[in-house]
């Protein structure tokens, strides 16, 4: 990769390759009346222009069947690959142009004449659920696309006996995935092989294949989807987007391979995002700060279709509970269709919002009761002795929400010690005397990781001695291949470098799911571990038969199987693999079955909960509202750590995502649904020069849920960041009593809060 030998979707060059560009909706909501492509067809280099009507000739269904079976969903809104007669968000694909270069294709797109009749828009999800609101889609019964009340415990009695009740309203925002490599698809139909090969920068190639089979009327053996090197996923690439069907369909119709590489403008408008959540909540607590219950309503900006169910608000809701004993909970969740690109989970996947709500409520309780923030948390932690800890909420897989293990009080204790919590007030006081406003924030969190229902892995020692691993898991730069190779190497006694891992090729695995929900080390890691264990066992038996010794007397070292204590008695893995490849007519040694390979489809039910605690020191420039983060400390417990460098990289990156969400990243729309932040000059990603040093300290509580004892680590760093940073800023501004209820916290927003909080007589 570092030598430039990586192969991303855009690196794939094929003879006769054509290039696609999309005509996209310039308006958030309109009735599509006419698409006039006449002027375009005669342009130089243009090889095909397809509207929905044109593609429909080869489509076996109008809508892409993405619906997931979530009971909360009132009606599914499956997208079409190109707009039919209604435009529902800016950026929605309307037509695909195939030309000899991307530039020519874009010229042709500009020459298409579009006639549409504007319709009223739904931009704000609250307004969209008011009576009399316009419909975000005329083809749907209303805007309330999903509705659910998540509840347990006796909420009314909790509030009736509470000594303390606090109401809050939070408006939270989270932007997009913003992988370095945007999306991309290359499709080629080969008549000789009778095979449609699609290179797709996806997190879920098997799902993409299923969709292509369903929509193009091909059989499973006629479609192969390959996710080549993928430059970052972060969630959006888990969703099957309309272009992933439109490009292969166009390639079939034009009779030549077609490439589409998403540009950044398309990425901002047409790639799914996370966006807005509005929370109205109330907490009930005892006089000594113990939680009794939380109730409220979550209103979620869902966008114009339902390509990924309700996972995002569901995660947000369940993450409110976190590592605390919460006896009663009742949250109404309302999902409003809006005229924006669909909202789906992005790294962190709603959890930072849920955690923010709980942690802010705990800070409010601390302030009301004049208790230290850490003490309120200590009084509410689930104790390690209470594990496994079940909460009466049914998960997607039908199991009860159950925390498998973790020592939350110890995690916070280590955090406070590392961050210098007790010494901080003196530092803060000294800084205030110098006119510097610093604060220290903390937050605890959990993440449900390792979502099933299964993942596949196969391990094979070929007659050449080469070792192949294939998995349904996918790699977008997280280090998946390294992690899997490491696990196999450990079992087979070889070096990780000698192992070739194929991730993300439907031709290499029968089934697979892919990258989402911080799951691949848990699911694919354990699958490959088991498969490698089976192969190692087979190798021992085979070598035992060949060497006429007992399998227990053998060890696997440096690519050899040798007799313990008699190292000259050995066979190489290659020799054994050749023998077990068979010779016509001859029996295999020990009459063992042929081959040195194993395939495991590891079933994974229930979730394993990663936990952690963050502390951050923030400094506020009270005249400008600017915030600087001085130091960031993470205590992270993802069970057994397979590769510390990879885990640290994941936590660093995820914390940065969380910092961006809190202070910088803002996908803005105007009142007509036009996206306003569609370049990186307007949408601010965190850059190295605004980041603090991030210290990561591991705590290892191996889970009993899987043989490796591992939990997921990919998203967890995002989850506590907004809560910890806001807690730090409120701490810095404690003399002013500033309360922060909106993310992202821009300097203008914070300065307005400071100005409003200014007490009479102050000259701030």
């Amino acid at each position, binding site marked *: 990769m570092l030598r430039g030998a990586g192969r991303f979707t855009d690196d794939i060059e094929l003879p006769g390759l054509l290039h696609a560009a999309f005509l996209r909706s310039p308006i958030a909501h309109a009735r599509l009346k006419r698409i006039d492509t006449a002027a375009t067809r005669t342009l130089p280099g243009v090889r095909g222009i397809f509207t929905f009507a044109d593609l429909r000739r080869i489509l076996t269904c109008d809508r892409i069947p993405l619906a997931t079976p979530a009971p909360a969903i009132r009606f599914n809104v499956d997208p079409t690959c190109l707009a039919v007669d209604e435009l529902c968000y800016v950026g929605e694909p309307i037509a695909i142009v195939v030309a000899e270069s991307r*530039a020519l294709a874009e010229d042709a797109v500009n020459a298409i004449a579009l006639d549409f009749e504007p319709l009223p828009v739904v931009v704000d999800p609250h307004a969209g659920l008011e009576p009399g609101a316009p419909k975000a889609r005329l083809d749907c019964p209303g805007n309330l696309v999903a509705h659910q009340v998540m509840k347990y415990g006796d909420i009314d009695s909790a509030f009736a006996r509470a000594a303390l009740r606090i109401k809050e309203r939070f408006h939270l925002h989270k932007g997009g995935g913003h992988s370095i490599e945007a999306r991309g698809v290359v499709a080629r139909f080969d008549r000789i092989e009778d095979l449609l090969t699609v290179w797709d920068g996806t997190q879920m190639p098997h799902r993409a294949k299923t969709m292509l089979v369903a929509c193009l009327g091909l059989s499973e053996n006629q479609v192969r989807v390959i996710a080549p090197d993928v430059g970052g996923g972060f969630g959006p690439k888990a969703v099957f987007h309309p272009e992933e069907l439109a490009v292969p369909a166009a390639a079939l119709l034009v009779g030549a391979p077609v490439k589409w590489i998403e540009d950044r403008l398309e990425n901002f408008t047409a790639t799914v995002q996370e966006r807005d959540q509005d929370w109205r909540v109330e907490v009930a607590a005892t006089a000594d700060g113990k939680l009794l219950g939380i109730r409220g309503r979550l209103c979620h900006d869902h966008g114009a279709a339902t390509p990924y169910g309700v996972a995002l608000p569901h995660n947000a809701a369940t993450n409110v509970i976190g590592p605390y004993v919460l006896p009663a909970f009742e949250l109404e969740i309302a999902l409003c269709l809006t005229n924006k690109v669909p909202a789906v989970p992005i790294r962190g996947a709603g959890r930072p919002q849920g955690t923010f709500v709980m942690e802010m409520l705990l800070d409010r309780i601390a302030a009301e009761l004049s208790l230290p923030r850490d003490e309120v948390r200590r009084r509410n932690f689930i104790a390690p002795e209470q594990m496994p800890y079940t909460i009466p909420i049914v998960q997607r897989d039908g199991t009860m929400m159950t925390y498998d293990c973790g020592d939350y009080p110890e995690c916070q204790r280590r955090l406070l010690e590392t961050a210098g919590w007790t010494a901080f007030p003196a530092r803060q006081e000294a800084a205030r005397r110098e006119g510097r406003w610093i604060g220290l924030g903390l937050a605890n969190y959990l993440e449900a990781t390792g979502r099933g229902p299964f993942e596949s892995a196969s391990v094979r020692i070929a007659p050449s001695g080469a070792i192949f691993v294939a998995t349904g898991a996918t790699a977008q730069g997280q280090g998946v291949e390294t992690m899997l190779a490491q696990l196999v190497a450990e079992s087979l006694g070889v070096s990780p470098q000698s192992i070739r891992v194929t991730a993300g090729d439907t031709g290499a695995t029968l089934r697979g799911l892919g990258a989402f929900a911080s799951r691949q080390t848990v699911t694919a890691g354990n699958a490959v571990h088991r498969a490698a264990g089976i192969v190692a066992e087979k190798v021992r038996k085979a070598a035992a038969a060949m060497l006429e010794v007992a399998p227990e007397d053998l060890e696997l070292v440096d690519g050899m199987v040798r007799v313990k204590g008699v190292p000259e008695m050995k066979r190489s893995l290659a020799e054994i693999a050749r023998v077990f490849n068979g010779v016509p007519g001859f029996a295999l040694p020990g009459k063992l079955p042929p081959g040195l390979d194993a395939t495991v489809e590891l079933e994974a039910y229930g979730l394993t909960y990663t936990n952690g605690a963050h502390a951050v020191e923030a400094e506020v420039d009270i005249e400008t509202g600017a915030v600087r983060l001085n130091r960031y400390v993470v205590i992270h417990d993802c069970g057994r750590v397979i590769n510390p460098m990879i885990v640290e990289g994941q936590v660093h990156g995820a914390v940065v995502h969380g910092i961006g969400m809190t202070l910088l990243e803002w996908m803005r729309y105007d009142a007509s649904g036009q996206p306003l932040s569609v370049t990186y000059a307007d949408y601010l990603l965190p850059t190295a020069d605004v980041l603090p040093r991030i210290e990561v300290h591991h705590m290892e509580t191996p889970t009993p849920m899987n043989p490796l004892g591992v939990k997921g680590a990919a998203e967890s760093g995002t989850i506590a960041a907004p809560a910890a940073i806001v807690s730090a800023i409120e701490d810095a501004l404690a003399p002013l009593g500033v309360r922060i209820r909106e993310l992202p916290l821009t300097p203008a927003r914070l300065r307005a809060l400071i100005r409003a909080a200014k007490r009479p007589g102050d000259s701030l």
Partner: protein
Amino acid sequence: MKPAPFTYHCPETLGEALELLARLENVRVLAGGQSLMPMLNLRLVAPDHLVDLGRIEELVGIEQTADGLALGAMTTQRAIERSALVRERCPLLSEAIEHVGHQQTRNRGTIGGSLCHLDPAAELPLVAAALDATLVAVSKSGQRRIRFADFPAGYLTSQLRHDEIVTRVEFPALRAGTGWAFVELARRPADFAIAAAAALLTVDSADTIRDARIAVGGLGPAPLRIAAAEQALIGQKYRDGLLASAGAAVAACPAEGDALYPSDYRRELAGVMAKRALEKAAGRARSAAYV
């Protein structure tokens, strides 16, 4: 994000460039391309012709003049940043240029390109306003000198004619006893500023302010000198709180707001930036005056 088709011209002399500008219709001049290239790729502009000034050597250079400093319009921001002569003769420009984009963009971006692009939040137009720079504009029909204060004609628009090229930028030298400062608030170090201020303050040995210049960016389409704030200082004996009152005069100026940074925030911030720039400039001026 591919530009609409255009014809690329790459003249090697100023004469050839002027000839092209006089002859062609719908032309844009490429002077580094750090703003124009993204605008082309986004198809925000679609010229038929692009005239690249990048090969015209006579437009590059930094020279000392009797009255201060003169820079060829195609001098890169990076060259300015690294110039000892600029640091000595025009330290305000040195201080500001570190805020201009990233090192990578400063390698290509030019002073003439930035001044003619006239982004309302850009640093170099603000410095030109504060220092009362003079631009030399040349066309086939002759040459004229334009005070920077007269140069902006509106948002992203200068009063340059379509056949003219800015060839040279002249900055007058600072008076003895003058302190300078450039201060801005940007979300990230390389971003365009939300508000920025440049200040020049001349203080005599009796601690009396002999001259003051305050220019702010981020309030409107072009950087502005704030005469009211300057007048509030000139002739005054330096004292605590004096500069804050000049900042308040800046904050009283009208500002154009947007959804992200409303006008009251921009005004207030411009006042804070002006106050901080003045404080820094005063520190430098007073330490110079007492030497």
